Each structure stands twice: as structure tokens, then as C-alpha cells.
């Protein structure tokens, strides 16, 4: 090794730079959707954005922090009910309620974390589910929110968002788009920061992480809190689109957790790209098979089994191993550059 050889550390790759440009172009196109897409397309896109948000957040919890929660529907439902309550009882603008329910969810997640962090592995998973059931049963008791049968958002509140139906649809679509941009930005910047390095280390080996100075409990605690807050905000938007809420819909383990786990696991758990791929696959499958009733669920199950057997690290894990592609450069690479080249070219 000569002295002319030096090293430096870079984070982006050619494929990630292309991905960043493509993402920017895609964002511009998506923001303009109200001018080119129909009402149904916008609803579908909104739903994709919100499901993708849930998947990215669950992936942060389970894929990075090792918190395999099957009770995130607690926060989805809390967010939905929170929005309805704030709008109906306090007369708040529904969009203003979205960040507020996020803050409320983070606060309520604090005592929950202290309680369920005493459990680990499968016990933790069951614990989160029990918490979600407690939420469902509690909200079913609130008669002013319709009790067990639920309630609709009063038409006056819906109309207060915007005069025309087209504008309301657009606002609701933009809110969902803003949500996924926020969620991706938060998770991506987190993973690129020094906290992300610690979090990834915990994902790979908790014992080593501890003995290298990482406070595993507090790291997980913050992940749980942020995931709770953002999940609740996503939940608020989901039910703002539906305009109707009931305990069974709001705290549904299939809709808000099972499908989300499917998305993350087949896409590639513990990667930024996995939830993106998984969401696309999920919505494609749903588009083709959803009308088939129970057969649809059997197809989902079969796809999950095949992917897990053939590509245990998910579709993205397979693509990454095979082609070395990276869309979100959270990894760091050491590159060698020969400073003698500079000397040849005096300037």
C-alpha cells in the first residue's frame, strides 16, 4: 500500500442516486394526481400510501428494533377514534386533529411501553395484541362515539373541510401523500443517523450492541413511541377517508396488522425497500383476487409460503443479494481513491 492511496466513506450508490431522481419525479407526478387521476384512482393511491406508511412503521418496529408487535391496530384505531372525537366534540378541523392524535398516541404509548417491554419475543407479541383488545373494548364503551356499533363523521364536519367534493377528495389525497412522505423521511433520516447505526446493530446482534455501549431498552422505547405516534396519524387519515368508524373496523387485527406483516415479510423485513415492494405486491394481488372471497386469503397465504421458502429475506432481499441494488442508501461504503491521479493533472 502506497501513501498515495487514501480511503473515504460514501453513502450513496449509482442506483440510489437514480432512485432519488426517480422518486422526485414520481412525487411531482403524484402531487399533480388530482389533475390527471379519477376519483377511484385517488382513493386507491391514498390507500396504498397509508398501507405503505403502516408497513414502513411496522418494519421499523419489527425489522430493526426487534419489536414484533401484532397490536399496532391499537394505534390505528386510537388515531381514527381520536380524529372523530376531536372533530365532533371540540370542533377541530379534521386535518389539525391528525398531528394531535399522533402526540396523544405517543403519550399513551409511554405507560404501555413500560408495561409490555417487560415481555419479550412471543410474549411481547401476545402482550401487544391484548393491549389492542383492551383499546377495542374501551372504545366500544363510549356511547357518544356510537358504542359497539360505531358512528359516522357528521356531514357538517366533512363539508367544513372544503366546499366542493372534488376539493375534499384532493385534500384527503394530498394528506395521505404527505403522510407517506413524512413517514419515509423520518425513518430514512433516522436510519442514516448515528441512532440508525445503533438500531441496525440491535437488529443484528443485541448482545454485541449492549457491550458496545448501545442502550437497547431506550433505543427500542423511542422506536415504539415514534411508531405509535405516526401509526395513529395514519389511522386518523384512514378513517377520515372512510368517514365511518366502529370498534371492529378500527381495531381490526387482519386489516391493520396481518396484511401489514404480510407486506413487510414478503417484501423484505429489515430493509427500507422491502415494504415498498411488499405493498406493490399486496395491492396487485388484491386487485386480481379480492373478489374471490376466501380464495383471496388462500392466495395470500400461498404467496407468503412460497416467498418465505424461496427467498427467506423477502423479495427485496433476493434482488439485493443478486443484483446489489440499493434504493435507500443507509449503508456506508469505503472507497479507495488514488490521490496520485490528482498530481498528474496539475491545476
Amino acid at each position, binding site marked *: 500500500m502506497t501513501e498515495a492511496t487514501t480511503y473515504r466513506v460514501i453513502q450513496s450508490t449509482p442506483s440510489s442516486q437514480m432512485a432519488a431522481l426517480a422518486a422526485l419525479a414520481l412525487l411531482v407526478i403524484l402531487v399533480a394526481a388530482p389533475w390527471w387521476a379519477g376519483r377511484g384512482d385517488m382513493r386507491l393511491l391514498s390507500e396504498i400510501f397509508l398501507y405503505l406508511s403502516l408497513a414502513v412503521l411496522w418494519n421499523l418496529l419489527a425489522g430493526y428494533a426487534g419489536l414484533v408487535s401484532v397490536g399496532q391496530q391499537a394505534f390505528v384505531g386510537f388515531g381514527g377514534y381520536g380524529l372523530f372525537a376531536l372533530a365532533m366534540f371540540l370542533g377541530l378541523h379534521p386535518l389539525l386533529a391528525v398531528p394531535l392524535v399522533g402526540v396523544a398516541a405517543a403519550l399513551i404509548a409511554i405507560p404501555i411501553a413500560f408495561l409490555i417491554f417487560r415481555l419479550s419475543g412471543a410474549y411481547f407479541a401476545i402482550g401487544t395484541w391484548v393491549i389492542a383488545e383492551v383499546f377495542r373494548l374501551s372504545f366500544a364503551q363510549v356511547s357518544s362515539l356510537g358504542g359497539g356499533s360505531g358512528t359516522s363523521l357528521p356531514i357538517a364536519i366533512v363539508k367544513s373541510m372544503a366546499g366542493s367534493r372534488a376539493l375534499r377528495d384532493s385534500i384527503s389525497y394530498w394528506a395521505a401523500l404527505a403522510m407517506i412522505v413524512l413517514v419515509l423521511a423520518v425513518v430514512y433520516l433516522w436510519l442514516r443517523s448515528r441512532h440508525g447505526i445503533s438500531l*441496525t446493530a440491535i437488529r443484528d446482534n443485541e448482545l454485541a450492541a449492549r*457491550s458496545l455501549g448501545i442502550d437497547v431498552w431506550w433505543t427500542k422505547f423511542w422506536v415504539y413511541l415514534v411508531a405509535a405516534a405516526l401509526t395513529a396519524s395514519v389511522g386518523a387519515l384512514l378513517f377520515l377517508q372512510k368517514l365511518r368508524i366502529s370498534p371492529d373496523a378500527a381495531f381490526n387485527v387482519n386489516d391493520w396488522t396481518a396484511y401489514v406483516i404480510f407486506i413487510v415479510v414478503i417484501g423484505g423485513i429489515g430493509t427500507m425497500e422491502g415494504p415498498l415492494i411488499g405493498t406493490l405486491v399486496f395491492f396487485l394481488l388484491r386487485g386480481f383476487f379480492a373478489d374471490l372471497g376466501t380464495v383471496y386469503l388462500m392466495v395470500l397465504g400461498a404467496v407468503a409460503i412460497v416467498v418465505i421458502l424461496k427467498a427467506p429475506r423477502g423479495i427485496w432481499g433476493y434482488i439485493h443479494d443478486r443484483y446489489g441494488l440499493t434504493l435507500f442508501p443507509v449503508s456506508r461504503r469505503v472507497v479507495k481513491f488514488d490521490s496520485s491521479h490528482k498530481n498528474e493533472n496539475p491545476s
Partner: protein
Amino acid sequence: MTNLLELNQLSKAFGAVRVSDGLSFALAGGEALGVIGPNGAGKTSMFNLITGTLDADSGDILYAGKSVISLSAAARAKSGMARSFQVPQPFTAMTVFENTLVAATAAAGLSIRDANGHCLQVLDQIGMMDKANDPAGSLTLLERKRLELARALAAKPKLLLLDEIAGGLTEHECRDLVATIRSLRQTGITIIWIEHIVHALLAVVDRLLVLDFGQKIADGDPTAVMADGQVRQIYMGIDADA
């Protein structure tokens, strides 16, 4: 001068098995202590107790004059203890470079910018630069052991605990390792090194501790300790038969 590390009557038992039985010794700053003993003597358990991976049943550990017995493993790491694991514990999906980066940011508390430079320097020193971008999970066992050393150094330790890092090395590699650890001593790092390759150990340490059944059998000048009859009998059991 004050001791960097002091163990006072440190005990830990798993059922009837005592991995640490009233263990006491003190280590001055800058000292290098070698630890030998038969398999199951409690050498690695001693490291687990010192670093907080394992909670002691009784006794105390003083580090830089303060008791650390109630501190978490993470807090002890931040205060300047770093170890290599006998059974390597890499962050398998992270690259070799990122493995060291964890130590430099979390344990040493460096900014990412400073950590980048420090880790490149460590990888160069340990001779792993050509593996920097490889996922740690793809390394061979020997490379994983070397990564354990690199990661511990990236933590900028005051107290470095090395657990059998020379096993399986060729004569040449072993000489390089000894040279590396000697150069570390020049920088004032205090070292405890558990090793079965005794000649490598003796080339570095200025004091030798012998453990058996969690107890201290001998402690002192390496040549005197190695000549001790009880040590020869316990540690090199074959000699007693001959």
C-alpha cells in the same frame, strides 16, 4: 497511582457451578494482564462479569475508582471498557466497516464524521481494509475474530478485554497480532488477555493470572507463575502424570 480496575470478592454461580468464586485482584492503569486456566475455569465468565453482560451474585467491581457493579453493560462500555467475544458476535448484515462504526459512535461517542476517520484507521491497523465493504456474515471464523479486535479498538477503550483472539492463527499472523497488541500498550491502554497460546501471551503481558473453578490459583510475574508447581499441575495436567 490508582487502580483502573479492581475486583473485590466477586462471585457468581449457576446452580452448583461457581464460575467466579470470591475473585479479587487489582489492575493498574497501563498494565497488561494475561489470564490462563483450563476450559470452564471461568475466564470468559470473568469478562462477562466485568463488562456487565452477566450480573454478579456478590462482590464489587471498581473501575477508575468507582463501583460499576450496578451499571448496565452499555454504560460500562461508554465509560471505556471494550471486549472481544470468544465466540464472535458480529453484526452479520452490516459491513465490516459499519461494525466498527457502531463501536466508534456508540461506545466512544464520536460524531459520524470523526468515527469514519477513526474506523478507517483501525481497519488499516488491523489489516482488514480489503474486507471493509464485506458483510460481516460472510467472513470466515478467523476474520470474524479479527473483526472482534477491530471493533473493540474502534471503541477507543481505556480497558481492553481480549478473549482468545490468537487461536487458529499461523505463526506469522500470530507475530503480527503480538506486534499490534504491543503497539496498543504504547498508547497506554490497559489490557486483560485470555489466551491459550501461551507464548503469544508471554510476549505481551507483564503479569499472569491463573484461574481454576472460578478461583485465583496464581497471580504475578509470568515466569514465576508458569514455574509454579500447582499451576503446572492444573493448567498443564499432562505434566503431573508424567
